[in-house]
């Protein structure tokens, strides 16, 4: 019971400071439908990132990790930001009077279904000691050392480790970013001890907060509440994403969630051009870079969408030229056999089509995600290119291109045929692709409906 209280308070502080940050950023738009849910959902991600940023600062300053050193400044920051954002809170409306009785049943039903899923996943998170392989050879290794020592110490490769005479630590991937291990450190600090099951609570919180944020984003895009909550359920129901909650400890689910929300925040900025959305998108994009090594490429895929929004006349040409330049650079690099971000580039186009098709369409990783996404691409081609969705479409396209290059031209294609890394890499893109799919289908439906409303219909006598 004490454990539950300590963990709840610890991560409650992180979530609240994030909500306060997002609310302060979006205070001008907080009363829109869905923005409150978006603020609460995104708040977790902002807070979870800020906690780790603050822990980096503490470590740099030589201050030991403790509840006081980590949480106290965050509580003060929360109070200050909440004070700043308070007029917006007052204006927020919780009314749902526009929904019909049937729609409310849909909302309650889907919410219950989601709640059951999250309760079941929570049991696995709370009971299972750190299980998956990479979690205990390259992620929690750092957390364990940093928690015990009370500050961040550097990890290094073998040769540097031998030369350092005990000043550096070693694990299977010493160069991996620190954000995810710092989550486990914060859990342990809040808990007061090392517990390699309970420290993984942030993975569960990631799933819950992501569902809330996606509901908010879809709602704000104009979908009715029942449709938006169905969208949130669809985005939260991917089996592989669920496994990454139940068997917590990998950085792929956080990578996927931060990337999806960064892309949606950037897209929202292209719509309203508010300072708040720009800062939020930038913060989430920076977080991507600190979660996994490929995060820098995922963050880079946001750039074409921003260019398209900033330069509507010349943007498409610039994006096309940029794309051609990237492909040319890749082709040139591939002749020299370089290693980029751990992937050996080589121009040897040989994708493992059979394994890729099995992964996308036959196995149980994604439910119907790829079928629906392809269908949306076909029927919603007009909407995809429309100014409202084009920036997000370009981002999704850039993300898909990144995966195609990685799995068709690099040594990563070896991981396709044995169904190992392929699905984890796809996981980075699938939640965003699903959100984009729902936005495309909604836009297509709105066009269908409006054209039906304006088309004269023959009336039988």
């Amino acid at each position, binding site marked *: 019971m004490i454990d539950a209280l300590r963990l709840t308070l610890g991560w409650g502080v992180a979530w609240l400071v994030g909500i306060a940050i997002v609310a302060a950023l979006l205070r001008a738009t907080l009363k829109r439908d869905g923005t409150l849910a978006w603020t609460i959902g995104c708040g977790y991600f902002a807070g979870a990132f800020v906690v780790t940023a603050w822990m980096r600062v503490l470590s740099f300053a030589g201050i030991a990790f403790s509840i006081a050193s980590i949480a106290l400044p965050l509580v003060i920051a929360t109070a200050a930001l909440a004070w700043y954002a308070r007029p917006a809170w007052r204006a927020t409306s919780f009314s749902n009077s526009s929904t019909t009785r049937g729609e409310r049943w849909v909302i309650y039903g889907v919410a219950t279904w989601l709640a059951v899923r999250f309760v079941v996943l929570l049991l696995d998170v709370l*009971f299972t*000691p750190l299980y*998956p392989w990479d979690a205990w050879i390259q992620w929690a290794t750092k957390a364990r050392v940093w928690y015990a*020592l009370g500050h961040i110490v550097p990890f290094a490769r073998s040769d540097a480790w031998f030369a350092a005479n005990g000043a550096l630590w*070693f694990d299977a991937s010493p160069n991996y970013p620190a954000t995810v291990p710092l989550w486990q450190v914060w859990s342990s600090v809040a808990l007061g001890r090392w517990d390699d099951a309970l420290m993984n609570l942030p993975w569960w919180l990631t799933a819950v907060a992501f569902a809330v944020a996606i509901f908010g984003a879809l709602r704000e895009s104009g979908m009715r509440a029942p449709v938006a909550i169905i969208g949130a359920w669809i985005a939260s129901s991917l089996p592989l994403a669920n496994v990454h909650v139940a068997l917590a400890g990998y950085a792929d689910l956080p990578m996927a969630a931060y990337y999806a929300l960064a892309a949606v925040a950037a897209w929202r900025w292209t719509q309203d051009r508010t300072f708040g959305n720009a800062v939020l998108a930038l913060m989430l994009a920076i977080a991507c870079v600190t979660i996994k090594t490929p995060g820098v490429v995922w963050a880079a895929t946001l750039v074409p969408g921003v260019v398209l929004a900033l330069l509507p006349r010349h943007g498409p040409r610039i994006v096309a030229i940029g794309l051609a330049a990237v492909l040319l650079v890749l082709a040139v690099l591939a002749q020299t056999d370089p290693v980029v971000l751990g992937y050996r580039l080589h121009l040897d186009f040989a994708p493992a089509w059979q394994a890729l098709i099995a992964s996308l369409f*036959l196995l*149980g*990783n994604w439910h119907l995600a790829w079928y629906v996404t392809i269908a949306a691409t076909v029927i919603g081609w007009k909407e995809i290119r429309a100014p409202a969705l084009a920036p997000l479409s370009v981002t999704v396209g850039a993300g898909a291109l990144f995966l195609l290059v990685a799995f068709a031209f690099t040594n990563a294609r070896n991981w396709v045929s044995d*169904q190992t890394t392929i699905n984890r890499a796809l996981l980075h893109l699938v939640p965003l692709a699903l959100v984009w799919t729902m936005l495309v289908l909604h836009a297509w439906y709105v066009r269908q409906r409006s054209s039906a409303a304006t088309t004269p219909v*023959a009336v039988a006598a």
Partner: protein
Amino acid sequence: MPRGTATIVGDELIVSRAADDGNTVISVTTDFRSRDYPVVAWIAAGIAPGTPVALLWRTDVEPARVNKRVLEIDSGQLVPIDVQGDPHWIGRVVGLALVVQGPIEQPLRVRGVVARPGTALETLRDRVREWMAPEPWTGASINTIAGGADLQPLPLPLMLAVALLMSIAVIGWLQRRRRGPMASVSRAGFALVVVAWFALDARWMVNLVRQAQATASQYAGKDAHEKLLAGQDRDLVAFIDKARAILPKEPARIFVVADADFHRGRAAYHLYPHNVWYEPYRNAVPPADQLRAGDWLVVFQRRGVQYDAARHNLRWDAGATVPVELKLLDHGGALFIVQ
């Protein structure tokens, strides 16, 4: 049991050795009409991938002829075969046999053979059984989810996608004939997608609940350390517990060697925050010239590392020797301090 060596344990035939000619043959006498039961499933486990395996049968129509069809293996199990189209699957089947070619590397467990009718209902039952097969967490779960049985002739996502496409096409065609608004087709399509998605998700939720029950029965009510002792590496944990009691409180340099990648990585994980070094992806020992007095060495289930108690030294790969003192020997592991 015409060829090979086997014993019956419970309801399983455990085959431990092939016959001298390198073949193993398991046969049963049968008597059924071939037309009524065209699908044959051998229930066997422990078959290595790539092993040549075949179904043999004899019929009353051609009693002198032994017929053969090669069987496929998936995840160590034999894939059921439909022999309806085979011209020699005729009359009454009077004998079935399973032949495994080559030596038996690991015990082969055979529970029996089933001949099933190839009716639509039976086929549907098979597919449902495959879709609903429990999929417990394994080391591979973090990378991929099969969505039921490992081998599925008709995966549920594909079946639902085809059904969706056909349903929406029919609705669209009807609506076009009636000259009704296409927006209603999109609404119907949306509803059908949600229903299909829910069907897949309900199957997945059943699996999640089953797994949560299994997890709870293994770990519920245990503290953090008891969970480790109930986990996948309990012997290693027990050894590291004793080693930690001997190791200094302050982080020390510790080298870990073990034959298995798993044991090296897990031992290191349990030893942090000590300053641990090991080869994550190769079964290798540290360079002997890099070890110095005061370093510690954990050896866990590692062949080729020899301790000379008289001379107080360790000898390993390439004849390197390191002066050490043995501090602990327990649970297949040893802890040394370098002198």
